[in-house]
């Protein structure tokens, strides 16, 4: 009899595991909780008696706090990014696009992959930013809702448009005017992340799925549907399914969406709310259908022909990971030059060919076709007009809304 080997994970599953626990944006690790809570606790400031440990108010200085710019004398820039979010060569250690940048400008890039999770990273840099100190980073990449929070708190610097000519010209229209940073005064997108519906043809076994409603209501899928722990993606898709615009919804709309989801949870329709680890459930067929991030689906499809995705007629959510320059960063001009560099078609194409997310740069198609014809024609990487028209973003939330909404969503997921 053939031995059943549960521990031997396929390449796709291993990748999913890695993504999930090392670089997942919804990743959850014991360490992340410990680290973030320790940071949170340290942020409570001031030793001694209980009464002495209030947390100081965030210094909300609109426009950010610059430090003296050392870009001229120190030809370097410190770039903090997520793991596996940059092109690498065959050796796996060098980043060709970054090296090309250094060759051209003489600016050395200290590239660190130290962002594993938005919430965790926020806990990590919060004490320094709240105290008005340098974080030691010139560029950080954070998902738009966290970018919006940092802008709201006045913890990032305003960009100098004269250093960003390519970025200004080549940024896709889709990403030009997020309501949390109109006209891109503080941030530029690194990559876009589309949320779509993915399904496993084998596990569906002929059941037809066209909309999120099918996932939430079809009794044949009971206990085999997955949703995301990322509140904006799950609620955003639900709002779209209810013909509401996630860019303009009210608190009542939000409650209605939560109630709609709650009904599905109560029926036992939803198996689990997941972070990046949905990929394992989907490939194994434990999820027949689920909400998924398009960048993952591109990779999963390549490994498993049963995996398919669909974009509901009601539309899909697109979020972005944004490039930001934190307060007191020492090399602001160098950082801006690096941001601008990634909006040139050639480096943008090289990056897109490697990391399969939505490329926010216009005019990349020809360059990308030279590297990888399939990628250039994949609407998940370079969305065409029809795709772009269906893309929606979640509106920015005030601090009170954020807490209230996250709390309601947490209750929905059981905690």
């Amino acid at each position, binding site marked *: 009899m053939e031995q059943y080997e549960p521990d031997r994970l396929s390449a796709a599953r291993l990748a999913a595991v890695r993504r999930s626990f090392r670089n997942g944006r919804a990743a*959850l690790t014991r360490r992340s909780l410990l680290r973030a*809570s320790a940071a949170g606790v340290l942020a409570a400031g001031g*030793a001694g008696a209980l009464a002495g440990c209030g947390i100081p108010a965030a210094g909300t200085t609109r426009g950010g706090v610059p430090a003296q710019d050392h870009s001229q004398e120190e030809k370097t820039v410190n770039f903090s990014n997520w793991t596996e979010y940059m092109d690498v060569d065959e050796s796996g250690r060098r980043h060709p696009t970054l090296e090309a940048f250094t060759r051209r400008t003489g600016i050395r890039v200290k590239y660190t992959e130290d962002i594993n999770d938005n919430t965790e990273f926020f806990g990590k840099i919060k004490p320094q930013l709240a105290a008005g100190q340098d974080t030691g980073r010139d560029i950080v990449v954070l998902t738009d809702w966290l970018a919006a929070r940092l802008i709201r708190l006045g913890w990032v610097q305003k960009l100098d448009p004269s250093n960003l000519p390519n970025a200004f010209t080549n940024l896709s229209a889709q990403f030009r005017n997020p309501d949390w940073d109109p006209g891109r005064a503080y941030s530029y997108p690194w990559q876009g992340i589309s949320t779509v519906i993915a399904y496993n043809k084998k596990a569906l076994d002929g059941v037809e799925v066209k909309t999120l409603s099918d996932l939430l209501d079809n009794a044949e899928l009971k*206990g085999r549907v997955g949703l995301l722990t990322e509140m904006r993606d799950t609620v955003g898709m639900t709002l779209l399914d209810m013909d509401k615009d996630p860019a303009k919804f009210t608190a009542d709309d939000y409650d209605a969406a939560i109630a709609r989801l709650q009904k599905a949870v109560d029926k036992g329709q939803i198996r689990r709310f997941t972070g990046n*680890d949905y990929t394992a459930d989907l490939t194994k067929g434990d999820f027949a259908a689920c909400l998924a991030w398009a960048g993952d689906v591109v990779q999963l499809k390549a490994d498993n022909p049963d995996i398919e995705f669909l974009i509901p007629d009601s539309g899909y959510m697109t979020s972005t990971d944004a490039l930001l320059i934190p307060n007191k960063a020492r090399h602001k001009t160098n950082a801006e030059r690096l941001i601008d560099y990634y909006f040139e078609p050639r480096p943008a194409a090289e990056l897109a060919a490697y990391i399969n997310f939505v490329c926010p740069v216009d005019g990349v198609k020809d360059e990308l076709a030279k590297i990888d014809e399939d990628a250039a024609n994949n609407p998940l990487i370079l969305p065409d007009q029809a795709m772009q028209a269906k893309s929606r973003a979640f509106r920015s939330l005030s601090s009170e809304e954020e807490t209230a909404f996250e709390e309601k969503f947490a209750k929905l997921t059981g905690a």
Partner: protein
Amino acid sequence: MTTVTEAPPLAPAPPEPEPPRRRGRWTPYLLLLPGLLWLLVFFALPVVYQASTSVQTGSLEEGYQVTWHVATYWEALSEYWPQFVRSVLYAASATVLCLLLGYPLAYLIAFRAGRWRNLIMILVIAPFFTSFLIRTLAWKTILADGGPVVGALDALHVLDVTAWLGWTAGDRVLATPLAVVCGLTYNFLPFMILPLYTSLERIDPRLHEAANDLYARPSTTFRKVTFPLSMPGVVSGTLLTFIPATGDYVNADLLGSTDTRMVGNVIQSQFLRVLDYPTAAALSFILMAAILIMVTLYIRKSGTEDLV
């Protein structure tokens, strides 16, 4: 002529070995210092901060001030008591399962394994060589809906029974309470086996012989001699399993569903997602207090002074 030699002056009393004794007096404290500092920085201070956080109010923008808002505790408890109850139930079930599985194995290693003893010990410890998360994820593959385990359980109608008991739902094991309890049991089993083994291994085999000589049947020997002497191991094993299992959130997150969330999941989401630090801190304190009370009662009841 007699010369009276003067009596030699009384030799001065040998000087008290004071310096070494003083050093000796301080040595234990010096040796304790690293541990104490460690505890101070990584335990005492965080506890103080947490206590402070739990009675603060405010927001990220306006900062948090200590307002002695103790109502947070009551609100947290009334909101999340189901998760507390569930955590205790799951952890207790896992602890009992660990004891039932671990005791025979520890007994075997201590008394019957002979030259296999080291090998079996290595097998018990070997899972620690890989990450906790990877091992828990492997369970998702083992218990997958289409996998052989679930298929077999389904064919034997075991799942009908467990579903009737409310431990599983439908034809699946994953994303049910059963999966979470099994995950907890699996992950904490070595913490049960190791103290049990050390306790059992210390029992003098001659006591068994003596019991035998006194016409005790093997079951009586176990009941009257072995088990009572292994009590320290049972107590410390159950504590080492129960305490971390109560606060665990990884198993509930990966193997569970929305209705199996434990208090660890609530604290995690309050701290990181909702950013309601006071509630998260209050929940942590309630959990600590609850565990402390339960453990105290348990140790009183089991009447063991020396653990291991």
